[in-house]
């Protein structure tokens, strides 16, 4: 029978399990423990009870990073759910050359975020192409500080996230659209339903679970936002670090010069709560969905 020797299954599991334990489970437990200490990169490590968590409450930089991160989720998710769907509907139909357009729209996904961030730094700078277009259309007289104003920097980063993610979610939607029954569309067309009406009456209800899934995926990704803001701000997090996300703040506190590992661990757990919170929110939403249907 399978598994004649007791040790055989474990021999198969050892490499994978070792990585999971050493680089995920133990560090997670360690993060929990460290969050109750004053551990630093060099020295420290005394148990300080809830001190780090009390400090969180008074730390304006933490609340700003949390606010930026939540704002990121709230702004980015609706765009990520809607825009790629429209894009997928547009490229779904087999027109001559459509394969080329699909590939082009997917290209930003293939590029790394650093490359995309640098490309948009050049586009959005005060001498950049975007400001030139806006000025030549007389929308503005002075260049807009997309990268120099903390608020605008955050919104620019959100734009870059959406721009890079469009193709990724488009592909997921394409797979979902392929499962929408063609007969329903045909029948509705014969009955004289317009394309827009068919979209809302047939397409959207069929692919609702996919929309929810993309909502979850893009929300979780947005809670962990880092590279976009980092690259657009050349690593600074905007003027005075005002556009920092939680992950940026964790990195600066825990891995920066101060090396406040204990405090960074407490912030990490706050991030964990945010991420898990969004996951649970969407799981509940999908349960409700099932009950309705």
């Amino acid at each position: 029978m399978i598994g004649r020797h007791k040790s055989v299954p474990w021999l198969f599991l050892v490499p994978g399990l070792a990585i999971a334990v050493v680089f995920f489970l133990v560090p997670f437990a360690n993060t929990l423990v460290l969050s109750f200490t004053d551990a630093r990169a060099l020295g420290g490590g005394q148990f300080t009870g809830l001190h780090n968590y009390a400090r969180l409450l008074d730390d304006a930089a933490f609340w700003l990073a949390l606010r930026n991160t939540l704002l990121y989720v709230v702004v980015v998710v609706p765009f990520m759910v809607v825009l790629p769907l429209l894009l997928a509907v547009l490229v779904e139909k087999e027109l001559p050359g459509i394969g080329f357009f699909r590939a082009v729209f997917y290209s930003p996904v293939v590029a790394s975020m650093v490359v995309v961030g640098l490309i948009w730094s050049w586009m959005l700078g005060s001498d950049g192409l975007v400001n030139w277009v806006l000025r030549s259309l007389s929308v503005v007289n002075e260049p807009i500080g997309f990268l120099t104003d903390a608020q605008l920097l955050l919104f620019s980063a959100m734009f870059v996230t959406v721009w890079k993610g469009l193709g990724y979610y488009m592909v997921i939607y394409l797979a979902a659209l392929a499962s929408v029954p063609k007969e329903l569309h045909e029948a509705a067309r014969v009955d004289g339903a317009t394309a827009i009406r068919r979209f809302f009456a047939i397409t959207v209800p069929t692919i609702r679970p996919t929309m929810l899934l993309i909502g979850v995926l893009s929300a979780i990704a947005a809670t962990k936002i880092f590279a976009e803001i980092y690259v657009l701000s050349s690593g600074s997090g905007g003027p005075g670090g005002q556009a920092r996300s939680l992950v940026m703040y964790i990195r600066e506190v825990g891995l920066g010069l101060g090396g406040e590992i204990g405090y960074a661990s407490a912030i990490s757990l706050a991030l964990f709560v945010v991420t898990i919170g969004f996951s649970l929110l969407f799981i509940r939403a999908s349960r409700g969905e099932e009950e309705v249907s």
Partner: protein
Amino acid sequence: MSTAASTLTPPVEHAPRERPPHRRGPSTGRLVSTVIRYLLLAVLFVLLAGPFLWQLSTSLKGATENVFEYPPQLLPTHPSLDAYAKVAEVIPVWRYIGNSLVVATASAAANCIFGSMAGYALARMRFRGRKVAYFAFLATIIIPFEVIMVSVFLTVRNMGLVDNLLGVILPTAVTGLSVLLMRNAFLAFPRSIEEAALVDGAGEWRRFWSIAMPSVHGTVTVVAIFSFMFAWDDFLWPLIVLKNPDNFTLTVGIQYLSGTFSRDQRVIAAGTMIAVIPLIAGFFALQKHFFRGIGEGAVKG
């Protein structure tokens, strides 16, 4: 990129299949909607490919051209490859590419081999502790890496792997996702074929390697591609682990380039093009398979 794009353009697909005669007839409405579709496609092309093309154009501008010119010059008037040569002078770009290749290849290989082994054990073998092992892998998917990165850094530091590519590779060498993907692939593969091999007296390892593995090669390919792409594009973790600019991977190195040489936009642009052109070219070469695979997945699902 216009020349590259035209050679990479897939051959124009055969004319639209003939449609069954339509009740409203081959109306002008249909023609108008097709024209509108192509117009939208063209606008989106500008929005999504335009920034890449602008970066390419900037990278090709000669040293005598003012890249900040107002109004901007869309195409280089004195095209030159000088900026590309300069990238290699400012940063050891070949070394960075080599480092990224090492990291991405090692990550892909480890995820395929060790992920398959663990997935096979979970799918095929009965032993005490199987549930525990399964949940251990599941937990690694639920815990975001960003939450534990400070502690993982301490672990890597204690192992003496700071500034070492091995320190970049190890934490994602076998992800829970790879393990569970492989487990599901093995579960979907009929057991009877393996059982036939068992009669022949094949050992566990041979059964796994010679019989089970070849039958799940589709999933192995998916794991390989995704592990490779993830490791190649990753930025945050290599930024944390690698300190010495000689050891950077390409993503960290390109970001570093933008800091050291922020004066010359041409060189930064050339650096990003070096990083992105191979990926986009490779993707365009394989895109037919890519989108077809998606269609198949949908049919199965």
